[in-house]
């Protein structure tokens, strides 16, 4: 649908939040928690963090939770009963105030989960998401969305996007039908945009660092460049922080838990950085050293996904680099690859 452009007073945000909350109890927004900014269900506008760059974790957990039950069963003697969890009744959920790079991150997840044989759990959860993003008016040294095809005002994946502009006003872009339905809740607060607004002027400046196509070409070519991967990953300690905060990392593990009466099969986040990720029971490990696992991470995002799913598996949010215990700034590494 053609975006509808409106203007709203920043001061009305609180009212909007109240209205949204009244209609959608599951209203998620960034909340400041000491050093963290977490996406949580809020009770009112005052809960929302005032000044934040990004949430510490990505928003993927709302469609692809840390722990998802994918099968229920009972374990009575001679009578095992299994039941798939009901995916039809996931509640409608509003994500308010997330960033464009988060919203567009669902593109990768959707490509992975909904392609081929759709994953009902992801699909149903994602369908119930209403995404109201805020364009970025600031960025930090880790941000590089512009280098991977995004930008601080990217509307992809959002139902509605707010952009702070001058005079305590905000630009409102209503982008989808779903967004329109939501915007009807506060249509009285919206005013028409009488003159064109140069949205770009109000956005953060995120310089383009590298050419993503170069990265794609060069990663694909560099599979056997062992020294490249070793040098890049020598300081990698093999934790899963990058993958877990990443908005597009979708690798998962399946595990059972039980208490002898009943059990559940769970789908859990996993990370290709863990040495156990590919370890065979025999002890053989196809990716036996960290450099191979680092290679897998980059290859997956910048070679395999573009080729097979036609999406770059990276939004340039820089979360992985911020979370990295040893400051592996992915931007630098990609730049190095682009310049090969």
């Amino acid at each position, binding site marked *: 649908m053609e975006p509808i452009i409106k203007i709203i007073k920043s001061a009305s945000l609180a009212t909007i939040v109240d209205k949204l909350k009244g209609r959608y109890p599951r209203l998620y927004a960034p909340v400041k928690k000491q050093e963290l900014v977490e996406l949580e269900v809020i009770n009112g506008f005052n809960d929302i963090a005032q000044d934040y760059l990004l949430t510490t974790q990505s928003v993927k*957990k*709302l469609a692809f*939770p*840390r*722990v*998802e*039950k994918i099968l*229920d069963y009972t374990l009575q003697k001679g009578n095992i009963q299994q039941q798939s969890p009901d995916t039809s*009744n*996931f*509640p409608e959920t509003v994500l308010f105030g997330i960033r464009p790079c988060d919203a567009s991150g669902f593109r990768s997840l959707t490509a992975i989960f909904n392609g081929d044989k759709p994953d009902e759990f992801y699909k149903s959860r994602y369908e119930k998401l209403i995404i109201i993003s805020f364009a970025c008016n600031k960025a930090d040294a880790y941000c590089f969305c512009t280098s991977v095809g995004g930008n601080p005002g990217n509307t992809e994946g959002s139902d509605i996007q707010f952009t702070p502009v001058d005079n305590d006003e905000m630009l409102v872009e209503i982008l989808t039908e779903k967004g329109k339905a939501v915007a009807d809740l506060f249509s009285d607060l919206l005013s028409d945009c009488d003159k064109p607004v140069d949205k770009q002027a109000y956005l953060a400046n995120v310089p383009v660092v590298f050419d993503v196509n170069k990265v794609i070409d060069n990663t694909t070519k560099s599979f056997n460049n062992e020294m490249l991967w070793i040098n890049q990953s020598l300081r990698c300690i093999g934790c899963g922080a990058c993958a877990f905060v990443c908005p597009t990392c979708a690798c998962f593990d399946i595990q059972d*838990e039980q*208490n002898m009466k*009943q059990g*559940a099969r769970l789908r859990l986040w996993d990370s290709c950085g863990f040495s156990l990720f590919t370890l065979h029971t025999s002890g053989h490990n196809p990716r036996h050293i960290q450099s191979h696992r680092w290679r897998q991470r980059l290859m997956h995002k910048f070679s395999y996904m573009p080729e097979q799913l036609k999406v770059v598996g990276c939004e340039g949010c820089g979360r992985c680099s911020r979370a990295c215990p040893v400051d592996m700034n992915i931007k630098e590494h990609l730049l190095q690859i682009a310049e090969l």
Partner: protein
Amino acid sequence: MENQEFEPKIVAFVCNWCTYAGADLTGTSRIKYGANVKIIRFPCTGRIDFMLLMKAFENGADGIIISGCHPNDCHYSTGNFHARRRWVVFRNLLNFSGIDTERIQFSWVSAAEGFKWADVVNNTIEKVRALGPYENYKKINVPTLFAKEDNNE
């Protein structure tokens, strides 16, 4: 009122050579104690993995008894000394993590102390009964796994 009805679940982790034998003697002497306590036999207190104690609470134990040979009486000469050190550390950790160490009773009960075993058991039952059911664990365990409603973030 509710607490009067409450029958705590208590697991006893005991060594084979002293406390298990001591508990056998309690039986042979027909000394009575509460049926809430169920014994798991280990070769030695040194074998008792702290993870098992954590698992006991997780799976609904309201109290735990750990008992072995008196110092210097260990069948394996030093297993109980090693166990004792671990308990010092483990108790400290549990306490620091907010896990109620009042619910864990450590004791030395020899093969000759049939009466003492009954006392330890009965006292522990009383103590745990007074503390009530261990709700903390029940709150975090059950909902995450087996609840029907959607608990995901």
